[in-house]
């Protein structure tokens, strides 16, 4: 026989008046009191509910969702503005480049060893525990915790490195640098981080990337696909997304520079980054002249000569710097 208590609860239950706690109590009472048989409708219903309440989504649900969101964002990346029109994209497939800001501290979790790799005057290739290959440029270092590749793949970079990330969607690959975090699920990219004042620039040549800043005051995030760049201004904490017009940022890996109707000011900027030399102009009109030319493993000396010749300029060479002297061109950009 059902107890009075059980019967009261059942009546209430069928009126739809029971609270969650009362239904829990009823569940227990029905288990305890061995009235009737196991096939009573109420008991079976609770069993059915129990079976269903254990159900959960598969563990990679959130990663898969995030990837879909990334794809969605890229499909609707209409806000991208052109930076240097006509500069042609040639270069390495399967790579993305970015240049990030310096400084990181207090990163590894206590108790876990930190593994560091660094270079001084030369480049070096490093293979990470997850199979990712990293080409570390000169005067650069990276560090990661002992538990790299356990839940995610997080590392910190100072300087410049080119990454070929082993694809693993369940473990996002995260590069932290300064106030920025770059997240990829699997692709290749280059990071450069040389100067505290300089902007952090990321250039994507292949794959998908989330690039975010995490300054104390405000957070910003952009999604990038192939041939897009974003620069993060450390001064204003603002991320600007632009189309990448060339892959000159990859010079240290490819040894090639491409200029296609690029302004002299852009050429000078790229030469300074690529060769670490100083180039100046005697007349600021020169800066807006267009220049076209491709260089493969060429010396800075030769490039400057070609540049001067095509723009009808003279070169004044001092110790580690070049000065271009002459007039501006007839048809500036």
């Amino acid at each position, binding site marked *: 026989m059902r107890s009075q208590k059980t019967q009261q609860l059942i009546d209430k239950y069928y009126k739809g008046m029971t609270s969650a706690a009362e*239904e829990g109590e009823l569940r227990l009472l029905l288990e305890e009191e061995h009235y009737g048989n196991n096939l009573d409708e109420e008991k079976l*219903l609770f069993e059915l509910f129990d079976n*269903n309440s254990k159900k*959960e*989504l598969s563990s990679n649900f959130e990663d898969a969702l995030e990837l879909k969101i990334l794809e969605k964002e890229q499909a609707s990346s209409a806000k991208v503005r052109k930076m240097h029109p006509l500069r042609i994209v040639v270069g390495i497939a399967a790579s993305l480049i970015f240049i990030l800001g310096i400084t990181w501290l207090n990163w590894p979790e206590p108790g876990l060893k930190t593994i560091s790799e660094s270079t001084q005057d030369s480049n070096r290739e490093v293979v990470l525990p997850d199979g990712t290959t990293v080409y570390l440029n000169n005067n650069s270092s990276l560090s990661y915790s002992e538990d790299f590749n356990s839940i995610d793949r997080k590392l910190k970079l100072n300087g410049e490195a080119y990454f070929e990330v082993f694809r693993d969607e369940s473990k996002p690959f995260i590069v932290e640098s300064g106030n920025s975090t770059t997240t990829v699920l699997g692709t290749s990219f280059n990071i450069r981080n040389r100067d505290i004042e300089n902007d952090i620039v990321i250039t994507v040549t292949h794959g998908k990337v989330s690039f975010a800043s995490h300054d104390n005051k405000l957070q910003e995030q952009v999604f990038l696909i192939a041939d897009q760049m974003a620069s993060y201004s450390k001064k204003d904490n603002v991320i600007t997304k632009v189309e990448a017009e060339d892959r000159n940022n990859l010079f240290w890996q490819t040894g090639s520079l491409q200029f296609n109707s690029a302004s002299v000011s852009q050429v000078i900027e790229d030469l300074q980054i690529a060769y670490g030399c100083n180039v100046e102009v005697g007349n600021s009109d020169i800066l807006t002249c267009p220049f076209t030319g491709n260089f493969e493993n060429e010396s800075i000396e030769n490039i400057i000569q070609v540049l001067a010749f095509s723009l009808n300029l003279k070169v004044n060479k001092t110790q580690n710097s070049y000065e271009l002297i002459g007039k501006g061109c007839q048809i500036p950009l």
Partner: protein
Amino acid sequence: MHITEFKSLVADHKNRLFRIANWMLHNAEDAEDLVQEVFLKLWDIRDSLSKYRSIEALLVTMTKNMCLNLISKKKLEFQEYPMEWLNTQCDEKKLEHREELGILQQIIDALPEQQKIVMQLKGVEQLETNEIAELLGETENHVRVILCRARKSVKEAYQKTLRVS
């Protein structure tokens, strides 16, 4: 809305939405795809979420409606249950209940959609009546009426099948 905020929203609601979808569709794969669709739609409207009285209510409504769309699209028939489904529904030691649970599930599936959802929210999610009312945009009293009708018709239908067999 920033992605980290969005992700915590996903973490908070994903399994409940999945259970609702799975309750409606009886297919974990379809349910997972559907919940993903729900969150993608939410991402699209992430900047206007303040318009809604409750994000959870919005998510439950979206899930429910998308399930109904999918059911009518696929014209899913729950008259005959695939054995795989029954196997996943029951622990092995309760194998002897399998047939009865299958019958019960068929009865529940034949209920009007609102009754089916309320039964799930009350029985599986173990929510209080006022919480269900909030999620479905109904009055508490109406939820009680729905629950009362659903439970009574399940009981009657089940006892009828027992008498027949």
